[in-house]
């Protein structure tokens, strides 16, 4: 789960990391008002979960009220890579001499958090990582001990951070690690960490991604999540408790188990279709969950057909079939063609039970996907 920049900065500032003066604004007048309070120059920054906001026109530096108004008008309401900008952060512009990068993430290969420091901040750090990996110093952390202070210093000195700010940067690194640990971060970054002409350091941007599996013990951040959700369908999936990812295609996909659902997506693509979503309804297939899943998929106006792929394991195929029937019978009319493939324990009995009037029943995964792709192509052609 991603926090917005303004939310992450609030968390950082509370932990003692220096951030520029700023306030959130949702209207043009508010932007100007806040800018006047802060004093020019200020930056007006779109608050959407999109990388490269600056290049896409989502961040503007303004020198006076006219420019502020102009920037606010252009950014508020703009479409930024598919997201509509509804909030902007108005923030004091920092007069910097140097831009650094600091971050903490989980290195899954090592099973350990890793602290990263680079003198090459202010740019796309993933490009730096690819082209010049040496420019990013990495220090792995033993999660039982936590980050030793010497490790923060070591990362900072090894990265060649100048002596004049080394102590302050090490302190930011330590605080960032503490946040990562205490707030169940999965990825916490400051890019750039700006160095001012007075040798102060200021977090000019803030990234904070939280481990979704830990939100149960992070109530404050879980509240921020609601505020941060942007896609209506993804918000609905949260509500239903589904693992759901929206995609660009027109074949809707429902299944049980992440690996099998991914495989179904891949087969849709393999057979010439385009997946509209990933939707894992989890174990079994109770009528209510099936209903909710269908509601989700049909709410996506791009969807032209649905493939419903259930492997009945412990839950027997005949029971699954009854659940699917019960769910489908709640619809007056099934909005788009649904192909059901049922496998595993008592699959044959299940297929017998399924209501052929409402759905197309297929025996194999390959067959079901091919049929759904055909339906989708037909619907799309109409």
């Amino acid at each position, binding site marked *: 789960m991603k926090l917005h920049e303004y939310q992450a900065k609030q968390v950082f500032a509370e932990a003692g990391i220096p951030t520029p003066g700023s306030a959130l604004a949702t209207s043009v007048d508010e932007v100007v008002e806040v800018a006047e309070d802060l004093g020019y120059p200020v930056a007006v920054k779109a608050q959407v979960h999109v990388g490269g906001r600056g290049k896409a026109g989502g961040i503007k530096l303004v020198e006076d009220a006219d420019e502020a108004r102009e920037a606010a008008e252009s950014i508020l309401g703009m479409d930024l890579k598919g997201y509509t900008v509804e909030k902007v952060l108005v923030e004091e512009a920092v007069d910097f001499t140097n831009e650094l990068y600091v971050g903490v993430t989980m290195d899954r290969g090592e099973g350990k958090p890793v602290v990263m420091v680079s003198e090459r901040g202010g740019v796309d750090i993933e490009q730096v990582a690819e082209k010049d990996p040496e420019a990013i110093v990495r220090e792995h952390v033993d999660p039982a001990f936590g980050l030793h202070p010497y490790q923060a210093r070591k990362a900072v000195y090894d990265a060649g951070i100048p002596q004049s700010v080394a102590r302050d940067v090490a302190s930011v690194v330590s605080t960032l690690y503490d946040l990562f640990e205490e707030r169940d971060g999965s990825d916490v970054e400051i890019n750039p960490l700006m160095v001012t002409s007075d040798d102060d350091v200021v977090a000019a941007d803030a990234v904070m991604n939280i481990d979704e599996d830990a939100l149960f013990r992070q109530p404050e951040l879980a509240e921020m999540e609601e505020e941060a959700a942007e896609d209506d369908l993804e918000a609905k999936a949260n509500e239903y408790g589904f693992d759901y990812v929206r995609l660009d295609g027109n074949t809707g996909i429902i299944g049980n188990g992440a690996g099998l659902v*991914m495989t179904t997506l891949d087969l849709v693509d393999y057979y010439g279709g385009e997946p509209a979503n990933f939707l894992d309804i989890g174990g079994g297939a109770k009528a209510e969950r099936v209903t909710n899943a269908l509601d989700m998929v049909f709410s996506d106006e791009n969807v032209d057909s649905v493939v419903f792929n259930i492997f009945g394991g412990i839950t027997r195929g005949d029971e699954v079939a009854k659940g699917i029937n019960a769910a489908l019978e709640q619809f007056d009319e099934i909005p788009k063609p649904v192909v059901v493939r049922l496998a595993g324990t008592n699959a044959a009995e299940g297929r017998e039970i399924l209501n052929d009037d409402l759905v197309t029943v297929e025996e194999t995964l390959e067959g079901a996907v091919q049929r759904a792709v055909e339906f989708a192509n037909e619907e799309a052609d109409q």
Partner: protein
Amino acid sequence: MSILVDDDTRVVVQGITGGEGKFHAEQMIEYGTNVVAGAVPGKGGQEVGGVPVYDTVDQAVEAEDADASVVFVPPAFAADAIFEGLDTDLDLVVAITEGIPTQDMAKVYKRLTEVDTRLIGPNCPGIITPGEAKLGILPGNIFESGNVGLVSRSGTLTYQVVDSLTSRGIGQTTAIGIGGDPIIGTDFIGALELFENDPDTHAVVMCGEIGGEDEEEAAEYIAQNMDTPVAGFIAGRTAPPGKRMGHAGAIVSGSGTGTAESKINALNDAGVPVGDTPEEVADSIEDLL
């Protein structure tokens, strides 16, 4: 033969009095697994499915001489339950629980370097040696005893592949779901090594998915260390970067690591045929046997 579990494995079920724990403990017993005890704090003295329940794993092990445990404990308490299993000198702990915070698992992972116990999972369907024992939630009836080993990050995808194998009359030595989380106890290499050393395993199916670099490392291991032939499958070719595809671990990072393409290439380079569909994997295994 088989790996890790068999007729003799004596199993404690951690969380046996919960809904999932009770249901699957009974399924495990019905399958013939030697479930000797349950462990649930505060429920010592009760019985579930004819099996005595103890307050601690240690007491269960002491009283019933258990050597493996299966963890069905809710995510908030699961890491603690795994620590309890690891610290009780079992040979094997299988953690079924999905949704354990990653930082809890990082601590468990550290502890694993200090003990001799093997952990499978979490967020996995478990392990089964057909006809002998299953520890977890796998549907026993789709498996058949035979000479193909199976290791997978996914549950239902495993069932899909096993179904294809069994329906062609190809049975399995042991099938392991290693789990879909970013940090897991036993990785592909750990499982492949066991299959390589099992004389009865004549071929191995390895089902990977996007996220991490475990499949790439496994490919290198296969190329350098395995005589037993391997057939592969990788789920998530169509997954967009930055999105978690159901499993906490199934995510292509923004910087482009963990893609299906990279994994498929690595496996192909190691001489492992990778199927475009699950049926193609079963075809490969037929060829390899």
